[in-house]
Structure formats: structure tokens, C-alpha cells
């Protein structure tokens, strides 16, 4: 692959609503043909950022460049960018078909082409039988699909999707994810997607940006973000993590009750500084081999059946909170554990991440 080209540059953009700072000094490059996910807690500024990219909200500060051209003040209809609204913003007076056709009509495409493209996207989004209904006659998920279809059918250079699949069931969501991927690959659309479904972002995105309180915390490939969160917040936000508080040592963390956790300490953390060690539940083995760097005994407090796996809550001397351990149902079938059992847990030093506390 060639060096990826930058499609959109967000250059030190900020946005305030009165005293509320919704977006603060964010710089980001979105690459051509990339699938880019925006993650962050509710209210962190994701929608606001997308609205600025689409051109509805002038940034209070900063610039937005598309293909190197400053489009900060370009009106929405002059940008090759489309936004699917979090609240859908369907035209209530138009049928599903009319809603979806609208954007293509604006491009003055031939009626035949409009018809065929609209038919195609209605088929993909399983809306064919609702084509003549008005939005108010649809279910929540159906409305969301109309909004999605309306944005997708335009095939813009850059498509901004604000929680596009949140109201869909897993099956349909899977199908829609495939469709988005197909559009990315076949049509060459660049996507920026807001999602609360972590699995979705981890599976689909080429890169993920994590926002908090209007600021950008980390921007990287999903696996990198998952495996190497830049700080405690990100580690906590993405996936599930066990945190162990203590003080930094040369080669790990000494917890408050004197247990040593082996792990790589970042350079900036000098020994003695308050730190926190993080371990993912799926990195923890039951009954580890004796060479395992970190080992601890505990009592199983609870088992939560999670469909695919079991999550064990194990009481250990390491912290007040139960340690979370994820094991496959299959593994448990072979070596049964139940509440009250004594177990030994273990994990490698390489699986420990250490952060300032």
C-alpha cells in the first residue's frame, strides 16, 4: 500500500456553546478511504465535531481542510461530505423513498439512475416494503435505517455517521456493517463513524480516536488502542480492565498491601510515584503454570454467564474490588469452577500496563 493520503484535516478546532466547551483544540487527520471511528463517553463532543465537519456549526476556533483546501466556511451543500444525524432528521412529509431520493435529486441525476440506486439501497437496508410509508409510520430501527440509506445513497467522499446502527438488532447491524465495509472498499468512501458499540469500532475501524470532555486522548489502530491505551481513562473506557493501585518500582508496581506486580514501567514514572497497573480479564489464566510472572490466589465470588463466555468475579488480596476473569464456557466445561471455589490466577508481565494514577 502507498503512503495513505490525507483527505480531511481537522486543525486545532474548538467549539463553545456559551460557557460550555463542547470541543477543545482537536487536531486530527482523516485519511483517504479510511474507516475512522470516534469514541468517547456521552457528551464528549462527538456530534459537535461531526456537525462542524458537515458545515452546520462554524468552529469557534481552528480550521477544517478537505484535500488541503480550507472548507471551514463552506456551506454544507457545497461540501462533498454527508452526515447521518444521530436523531435521524427524516423529512416527516416525505415517504421513505422520497427521503432517500432527495439527495440524489439534488445532484440532478437522471431519474432512472436515481431509481435504481434508491432501489438498491432500500434493498440493502431491508426497507423495500416500507418505501411508501411516512417516517411516523415506522419503527425506531426502521427510521434509523432510512437515515442511513439517505446518507449512504449519496456516496460522498466523506460520510459522517453519528451512531448509525444503535437502534438495530445484532443481525441487522452485522449486515449493515458489511455494507459499510463494502462501500468503503468498492466505492471508496471515507467513513467517520460515531459508535458506542466497542466491538463495532474494534472490528470495523481502521483507526479509532478516543475523545473525552471535548479533547482528543488517543488516535490509533484499534488493536493498538486496545492493547496499549495511552492512559488510564482509555484503558478503562475501551474494554474491561482490572486496575491495581500502588506505587511504581523499577520493574512493576507495589500495591498498597505489599504485593508486587511485574510489568514494564514507562520511563516517565519514577519509582515511588502513585501508579496503577491494568490487566485485561481475558489475559488472566486460571491455574497458571508456575513460571507465570504474576500469580495470586483468590476465591470465586460469582460467575456471570455472558452467552459466549463466563466472567468470574474473584476476590483477591490485591484490591477491594473483585478481580474480573474471563474464561470460555468451553474451558469451564472441562475444568468446572463454581462460586466459593479457591482458584489461582496468573498473567504475564507483558500483559500488564502501568499508568500514572
Amino acid at each position, binding site marked *: 500500500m502507498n503512503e495513505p493520503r490525507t483527505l480531511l484535516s481537522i486543525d486545532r478546532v474548538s467549539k463553545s456553546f456559551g460557557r460550555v466547551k463542547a470541543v477543545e483544540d482537536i487536531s486530527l487527520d482523516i485519511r483517504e478511504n479510511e474507516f475512522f471511528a470516534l469514541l468517547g463517553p456521552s457528551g464528549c463532543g462527538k456530534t459537535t465535531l461531526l456537525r462542524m465537519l458537515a458545515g452546520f456549526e462554524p468552529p469557534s476556533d481552528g480550521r477544517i481542510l478537505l484535500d488541503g483546501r480550507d472548507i471551514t466556511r463552506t456551506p454544507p451543500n457545497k461540501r462533498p461530505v454527508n452526515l447521518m444525524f444521530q436523531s435521524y432528521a427524516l423529512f*416527516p412529509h416525505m415517504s421513505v423513498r422520497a427521503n432517500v431520493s432527495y439527495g440524489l435529486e439534488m445532484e440532478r441525476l437522471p431519474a432512472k439512475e436515481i431509481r435504481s440506486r434508491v432501489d438498491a439501497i432500500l434493498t440493502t437496508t431491508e426497507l423495500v416494503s416500507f418505501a411508501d410509508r411516512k417516517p411516523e409510520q415506522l419503527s425506531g430501527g426502521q427510521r434509523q435505517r432510512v437515515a442511513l440509506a439517505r446518507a449512504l445513497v449519496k456516496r460522498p467522499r466523506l460520510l459522517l455517521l453519528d451512531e448509525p446502527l444503535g437502534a438495530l438488532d445484532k443481525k441487522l447491524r452485522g449486515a449493515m456493517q458489511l455494507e459499510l465495509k463494502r462501500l468503503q472498499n468498492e466505492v471508496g468512501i471515507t467513513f467517520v463513524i460515531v459508535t458506542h458499540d466497542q466491538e463495532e469500532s474494534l472490528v470495523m475501524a481502521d483507526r479509532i480516536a478516543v475523545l473525552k470532555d471535548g479533547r482528543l486522548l488517543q488516535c490509533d489502530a484499534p488493536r493498538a488502542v486496545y492493547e496499549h491505551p495511552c492512559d488510564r481513562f482509555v484503558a478503562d473506557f475501551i474494554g474491561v480492565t482490572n486496575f491495581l493501585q500502588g506505587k511504581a518500582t523499577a520493574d512493576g508496581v507495589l500495591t498498597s498491601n505489599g504485593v508486587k506486580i511485574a510489568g514494564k514501567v514507562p520511563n516517565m514514572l519514577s519509582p515511588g510515584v502513585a501508579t496503577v497497573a491494568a490487566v485485561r480479564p481475558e489475559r488472566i489464566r486460571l491455574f497458571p503454570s508456575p513460571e507465570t510472572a504474576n500469580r495470586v490466589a483468590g476465591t470465586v465470588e460469582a460467575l456471570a454467564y455472558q452467552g459466549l463466555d463466563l466472567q468470574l468475579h474473584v476476590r483477591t488480596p490485591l484490591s477491594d474490588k473483585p478481580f474480573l476473569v474471563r474464561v470460555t464456557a468451553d474451558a469451564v466445561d472441562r475444568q468446572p469452577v463454581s462460586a466459593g471455589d479457591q482458584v489461582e490466577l496468573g498473567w504475564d508481565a507483558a500483559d500488564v500496563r502501568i499508568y500514572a494514577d
Partner: protein
Amino acid sequence: MAERSPGTRRALWLVLTLVFAFLYIPIAVLVALSFNNAGLPTAWSGFSLKWYASLAGNSAILSAGLNTLIVGLISTTIATLLGTLLAIGVEMRRQFGKGLEALIFAPMIIPDIVLAIALLSFFSMLNVTMGLQTIIVAHVVFNLAFVCSVVRARLKNFDWSIVEASADLGASAITTFRRVTLPVILPAVVAGALLAFTLSVDEFIIAFFTAGAGKASTTLPIQIYSMIRFGITPEINALATIVMAVSVVALTLSQRLNREVIGQ
């Protein structure tokens, strides 16, 4: 949410300026004439307050003015209430026959004179004592329809789920109306009320027919229409000027009061 471009903003202000100029040019003439020395609206013949003085001495006009205000305020209040409820009722479940639709439009299109004569005949058949109360009742008939129309226009884009939410949270229909529906559609209700008041204070035929025999129920339009035989004297212009001035003062005060009481 999103802001408008400066070009658009300028265009909107231009529209407002032009429209208000159109609305107020004749009003400027009207006000000027109230200070005109001469009685005929032919030419300016010097500044004078004499029409205000003679207005002060004209009890017929003053009492008619007061009657008009009473009729206007009461009929507007009743019509706004009934019309709003009607609009909500009709729009909430739109499963009505043409009959109801016709019933709601009817007061607007029945020729005034028919309604006037019908009501008068009806009232005298029932031996109802005529007076301000009969004018009010009659004005409510058509005002109700006008208010209903305005409010319905607003309700076409209304999100009914908030009404359901209110009921769901335990509110009675009345509480829902008072605390949810009404505040949300208030701009339209206010618009309807302004419209009703405006119609009422200018209405002549129906008022004339449903008024009692006596000054106690003579309204300003009745008074003014009868004065037309001699051309309108600037006294009426003076009265109109005062009405408008008082309204502006009242609005200013209420705005200030609002701001002080409610804050913001």
C-alpha cells in the same frame, strides 16, 4: 442551533423593515391627523391637541372604547381557550368526518350578516337580555374558529409523544394541557389570541346586531361607523393613537416585569 450567514441575516432584517414600514405608514398619517388642527383630513393646518381635549369630553366615544376593550378581552380569552382545546382535540385524533371539519370552518365563512341576524333572532326568541354579554358570546363564535385554525397549523408539526409522556407520568388531561401542550404551542396560542383580539375590536355588524339597545353596549366600531356620515373627525384618530400608545406602554411594562420576575 446553527447560525445563519450574514447575507441571510441582512435579507431577513430588510424584509422586516419593509413590512413594518408598510404597516406603519398609514398609521403615521393617522397619528399625525390626530394632531392636525383642521377637522378635514385634507391638509395640515397646524399642530393642535384640541382633538384630545374634545375626546376627553366625549363620553360616548370613551365609553364605547371601554366597551370594545371589554368585549375584546373577554371574547378573546374565551375563544382562545375554546379554540385551542378544539384544535388539540381535532388534531390529536384525526379521525373525524367532514362534518366536524365543516363545523369548524363555518364560523369563518358564514357571512357576517347571517350570523348577526341569526343570533339576534335567536336571542330575542329566547328572550335573552341583549348587552355586552351577547356581543361577547357572538364574537366567541367566530373567534373560536380563527384561533382554532392558527393553533391547528402549529399542531400539524407537533410531537404528540410528549403528550403521551405526560399522561404516562401520571398527569391528567388538564394538567398535561396546562404544563406540556400549552407551553409548547404557546407561540401559536398567543398568535391566535392576538388575531382574535384584533378581529373583535374591529368587528361591526355582528356587534351592532347583538348589542343591547343602549349606550352600555355600544362598541367603538358601532360608534365610528355611525359617525362616518360626517366624515371621521380626528377625535377618533386621537383615540386610536391613545389606544396604540397605551398598548405599547403596557407591553413594555409587562416585558420588564417578566424579566424582573422570571429573571433571564
